[in-house]
C-alpha cells in the first residue's frame, strides 16, 4: 500500500472503532462495504465526515460517484489525490 492508502486505512480503523483490526488487515482492493470489510451505511456517513475533516473532501451523500469512491481504500486514495490536485 502507498503511504496515503495506509493513512486512509488507519483513519478507517480509528474512526469506525475497528479495534480488532490493524492497517495490515485491510487490503487496498478489499471492498469496504457489504461482504468485504462489513461496513454499513452509518459507517459510510461517519467515514465521509472523517475524510472531510482530514482531507477537506466534499462528498455528496447519495451520488453514484460517491458510491464508486467508497468502494475500497485504493479508490478513496485515488479520490483524495485527484481532489487535492484539482484544489
Amino acid at each position, binding site marked *: 500500500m502507498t503511504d496515503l492508502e495506509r493513512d486512509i486505512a488507519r483513519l478507517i480503523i480509528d474512526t*469506525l*472503532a475497528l*479495534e*480488532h483490526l490493524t492497517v495490515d488487515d485491510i487490503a487496498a482492493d478489499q471492498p469496504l462495504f457489504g461482504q468485504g470489510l*462489513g461496513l454499513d451505511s452509518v459507517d459510510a*456517513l461517519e467515514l465521509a*465526515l472523517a475524510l472531510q475533516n482530514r482531507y477537506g473532501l466534499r462528498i455528496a451523500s447519495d451520488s453514484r460517484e460517491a458510491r464508486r469512491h467508497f468502494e475500497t481504500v485504493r479508490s478513496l486514495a485515488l479520490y483524495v489525490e485527484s481532489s487535492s490536485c484539482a484544489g
Partner: protein
Amino acid sequence: MMEFVVDAWRAWAPGMEDETAWATWCAAPHAIVDNGEQPACEFVPPMQRRRLSRLARIVMHAAWPLCGDDEQLPFVFASRHGETTRTFAMLDEIGRNAPLSPTQFGLSVHNAIAGQWSILRGQRGESVAIAGEADTFEHAIVEAAALLGDGLPAAIVVIAEERPAPAYDGHIDDIPFSYALALRLSVAGSGPRWRLSLAANDGAAPVAGVPHALRFVRALHDGAPLDHPWKTRRWHWQPSA
C-alpha cells in the same frame, strides 16, 4: 402492591466481577473507585461490539446470561442519566461548530441500548426504556410488573448508570461509580419472592452514598426489607414467603 419472583440477578461495578465479590461487598458496603473499567463483552462479535458504549457494555455484561438463546423475554432498560458520555461528546462538537458524529447521534437516544439488546439477542418482543428520578429503579420494576401482569412469564429489567464526565460534577451527584443491576423477574419462578408497595412519604430523607439499586442487591443477600423514600413517594420492599 406488586409481587414477583427474582429468578436471577447479576450486578456489575468496577472491579466487581462475580457473585463472591458482591457477597463480600454486601457484608460491608464501601465506596467503589471508578477508573473507567468496562466489561470486555467478548460474547459480542467485534463488528457489533464496536458500537457499544461503556454504558451499553455494562448493560450487556449484566443482562446477557439472564436470557436464554431460545427465549423471547420483554426487556426494561432504566437509567436516570443515560448516555451522558455520548451526549457530552456531541455538545462538544456543537460548541466547536463541528458536524455531529452520526454514530454518536444515532446511539445517544435513551432507547438505543434496548435496541442494541434486541438486535444482538434477536429479541422481537416488548422493550421499554425509562428515565425517572432517584426512584428510577422502582419505576422500572413497575414496568416489569405490568408486563408480567399482562401474562408474560418473565421479564428482564436492567438499571444502569455510568459515571459522567467531570463537567457534570455538582449537577449529577448520585453516581459515585458506574454500575448495573440486571434482574430476571417472573410470576412463578423458583427464586426469592418480593413485594414492592408505594405509600405517601411523610418526610423521610433518602439514604445517600450507595446507589439504591445496589442497596437492593444487599437486601437480596440478607433478605431484609428495604425502604426508599423520595420526595412524595415512599417505596417499600418486603421479602415474601
